[in-house]
């Protein structure tokens, strides 16, 4: 699989020309939105580690039994586990893959890569950012001063080292990444897809500009009037966006800045179960929490109201002082 192949500009523009970029309402259901993701696609995920992960969308993609996805994210976490463990993705492009330092290595990642033929394509964090940024700018690469001299560069011939035509300095050119579809969760957007993101943006803006389709879930759909009262707060313009779904707690059990912190009780139980047995533990988790629930609200109920309310209180406390 040659993931880092750069899309020729003509193709990128032709794909874009076919998109409906007109001002129109795009509100739909989680099921319909997730169906933009088809087998074998390159999928980009918003957020980072346990923050603003588009969990409800990933959950629905897995429920729709997608296969052979190549998934990229700046830092991937539980979402990477679920995508590998469910068989939805066999290729993950990121700079770091684990639940977070509290829980050590991901055994699901380890099992997938060491024993199950899955690929974890590693780039430095800045390189990931520059790959999305090049994709969003409509250029085939961006120059960086990282990865040089390291074995990451050695195993990533998709990046090209050059001597700078201006200074003679060695530089690494990282190739543009234009996912087929990006899944992004935001605090609020309007029905057209004009999105505001509070606090940490991670690589979401570049990702949204780079992707050939963007699906937003949002804690809340607000009026276009409200968006237009503070246009300098819009972080993703509506014409990048192809579908909008209102999904409160759409990042659970991860956090959404200003709304809720991670649901750590659920995360503790999850990690204990899948690290004890990355195959059967994961299978049981998927059955109970992904395939089992009738709806996202049903999933939240399984996480537990107390945990959800605790996470919310912690999340809102960022604005207390």
């Amino acid at each position, binding site marked *: 699989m040659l993931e880092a192949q750069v899309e020729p500009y003509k193709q990128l523009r032709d794909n874009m020309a076919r998109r409906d970029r007109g001002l129109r309402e795009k509100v739909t259901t989680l099921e319909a939105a997730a169906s933009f993701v088809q087998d074998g696609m390159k999928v980009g995920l918003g957020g980072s580690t346990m923050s603003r992960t588009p969990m409800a969308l990933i959950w629905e993609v897995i429920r729709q039994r997608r296969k052979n996805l190549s998934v990229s994210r700046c*830092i991937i976490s539980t979402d990477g586990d679920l995508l590998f463990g469910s068989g939805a993705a066999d290729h993950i492009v990121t700079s770091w*893959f684990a639940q977070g330092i509290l829980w050590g290595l991901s055994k699901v990642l380890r099992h997938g890569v*060491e024993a199950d033929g899955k690929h974890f394509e590693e780039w430095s964090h800045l390189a990931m950012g520059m790959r999305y940024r090049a994709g969003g700018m409509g250029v085939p690469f961006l120059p960086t001063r*990282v990865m040089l*001299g*390291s074995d*990451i560069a050695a195993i990533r011939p998709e990046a090209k080292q050059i001597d700078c035509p201006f200074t003679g300095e060695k530089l690494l050119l990282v190739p543009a990444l234009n996912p087929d579809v990006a899944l992004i969760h935001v605090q609020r957007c309007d029905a057209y897809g004009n999105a505001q993101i509070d606090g940490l943006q991670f690589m979401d803006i*570049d990702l949204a500009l780079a992707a050939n389709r963007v699906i937003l879930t949002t804690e809340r759909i607000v009026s276009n009037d409200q968006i237009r009262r503070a246009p300098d707060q819009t972080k993703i313009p509506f014409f990048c966006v192809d579908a909008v779904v209102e999904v409160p707690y759409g990042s659970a059990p991860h956090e959404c800045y200003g709304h809720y*912190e991670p649901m750590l009780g659920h995360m503790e139980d999850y990690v204990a179960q899948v690290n004890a047995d990355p195959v059967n533990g994961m299978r049981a988790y998927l059955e109970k929490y992904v395939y089992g629930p009738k709806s996202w609200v049903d999933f939240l109920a399984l996480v537990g109201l107390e945990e959800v309310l605790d996470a919310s209180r912690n999340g809102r406390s*960022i604005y207390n002082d």
Partner: protein
Amino acid sequence: MTDAPSYTANEILAVLSARQLKDGQVVFAGIGTPLLAATLAQRLHCPSLTILFEGGVVGAFVEPGKLPPSTNDQRCAKRSNMVLGSADVLLLMQRGYVDVGFMGGAQIDQFGNLNSSFIGDPQAPKVRLPGTGGGNDIASLTNIIVAIKHQKRRFVEKVDFITSPGFVRGGKSRTESGLLRGGVFRVITELGVFGFGEESGRMKVLALNPGVTREEVQDNTGFTLEFDERLETTAPPTTHELETLRLIDPDRLFTA
């Protein structure tokens, strides 16, 4: 001291790391000991230390007892001076705004190269580690301090995989690779404080921690260590340092 306070390995790691920072510096800190050490320094001798996190935070002030589970959580951003995109905070380092990067790793070698990607053959790894995150970027772009547990399997002659470059193959090889600035300048462990030969780029012992012998540190290291001519003994963590540390991490998330 007659009543020297007791401390864990992770605690002395955090305290000695904090001591490496100077007030007014701009420091890029990874999760775990680096975050803890930077926050500790800020509450001790560096009230105007500027802490950056990979999640996109500039000028952070982590609240005692509210350590974040990663540097991408909102707890890192609360009441900070600036929040921006993840790539942009790393670009600040590429531009040169950062004085010191502060990071960990799974394996380190004699030239200060760090591995956090693969144990064994990268093509068929024995262990697939989490990967570089911002580690490669920090090590490529600025002067770094590494805080790491001192074990023979971690201190190896040659890392299985260079995730984050130190002095690469020693000598001028770092510069020749295109890394024109930065480099590892301190390694902090529970056994001592280490620097690097200016010409050779090889690790050497600058100071031994209280009660640690030359033999003990050599026995826990997978390559032959040089000892600095002016080898010092680290002053032990003070009660004030440890109390402050325990105030910051009362649940011992990072110091167990």
